[in-house]
């Protein structure tokens, strides 16, 4: 009995690929990659978008992150380890980008956030709260921003955060506490400013 499987893009690509230009071998096969990508692409994009403050840059870095991940020879024991490794590549790419382009604007509200929408009540409150958050996050150090996002927005475990950011697992709790304190202070300041502005 013949077993059929869905043709993947690279299968189609391979049909007219001349000899010697066949698929470049990655550590991961395509089907495993597709499953892994489907599980991680959206959280990774969100992370990149919040770390860079630029959705277009997040698009570029997403592709670059997966490319470097596929090219790496690292062996990952578990899904968690693999995901942490992927996020670590992304973190390094964002860091490199920041070093290369010191004047990069970080975490400004994106177009859809900054657009004045005719919002009322809760929607307006939420929108204002998001804007306050973006502004406060922009004032944080990149590592603090990453810590808070990974821990509270994406719910990563402390061990995974440590692996992603290259810090000791035991110090994540303290670093997180300090980052949280800074962000809370900045947000309270912003809220006081908003209240004064409304008077």
């Amino acid at each position, binding site marked *: 009995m013949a077993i059929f499987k869905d043709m993947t893009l690279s299968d189609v690509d391979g049909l007219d690929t001349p000899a010697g230009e066949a698929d470049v071998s990655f550590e991961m096969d395509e089907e495993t990659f597709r499953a892994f990508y489907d599980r991680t692409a959206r959280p990774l994009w969100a992370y990149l978008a919040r770390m860079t403050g630029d959705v277009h840059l997040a698009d570029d870095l997403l592709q670059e992150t997966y490319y470097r991940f596929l090219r790496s020879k690292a062996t990952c024991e578990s899904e968690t380890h693999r995901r942490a490794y992927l996020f670590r590549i992304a973190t390094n790419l964002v860091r490199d980008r920041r070093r290369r382009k010191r004047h990069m604007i970080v975490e400004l509200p994106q177009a859809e956030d900054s657009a004045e929408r005719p919002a009322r009540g809760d929607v307006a409150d939420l929108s204002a709260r998001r804007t306050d958050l973006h502004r406060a996050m922009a004032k944080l150090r990149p590592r603090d921003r990453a810590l808070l996002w990974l821990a*509270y927005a994406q719910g990563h475990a402390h061990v995974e955060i440590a692996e992603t950011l290259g810090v000791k697992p035991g110090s994540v709790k303290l670093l997180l*506490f300090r980052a949280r*304190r800074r962000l809370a202070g900045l*947000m309270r300041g912003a809220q006081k400013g908003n209240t004064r502005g409304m008077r």
Partner: protein
Amino acid sequence: MGCGECLREQDLLDALASNRWPARCEEELRRHVATCDTCADLEQVVGPLMDDHDHLWSTIRVPSSGTVWWRAQTRARLDAAREALRPVTVAQAIGAALAVLSLAALIWMAAPWLSGLQQLMPDLPAVDIQTTRLMALAGTIDLARWWWVIVAAATWLLLAPLAIYFVLFED
């Protein structure tokens, strides 16, 4: 308990994650958060972060896995081709540097012979006077005294093409 830790943190996180905070959670937890700095910070930060995440999540548009795989394959092929050419380029650079070195050495070795030749045949029109002077000058270089200049020049000639290569081909 460590610095700034509170036993009720997890309760608050659970309430925030399950949208029970503040209206549908226990009165006791609300009272605690009002008096605990650590939990107050947590409440101040985590709610907006979760909300921002949910909002962002609804706007995410990522390319399909097939597209990302195909692009990675294409780029890997290009990178592989470039890497295959790298030794050739390095060899070319080293070859060019060696050629320049050999030429310089040849001129230096031939200088006494050429000046002697001109003395034997003063009417020899083929040898340019400037070139002859330059060769004579090269012949007077005291190798024992200036060896470090020659070594430095040779090293520079060898390393400069490599350095230029790595700078230009970096990413």
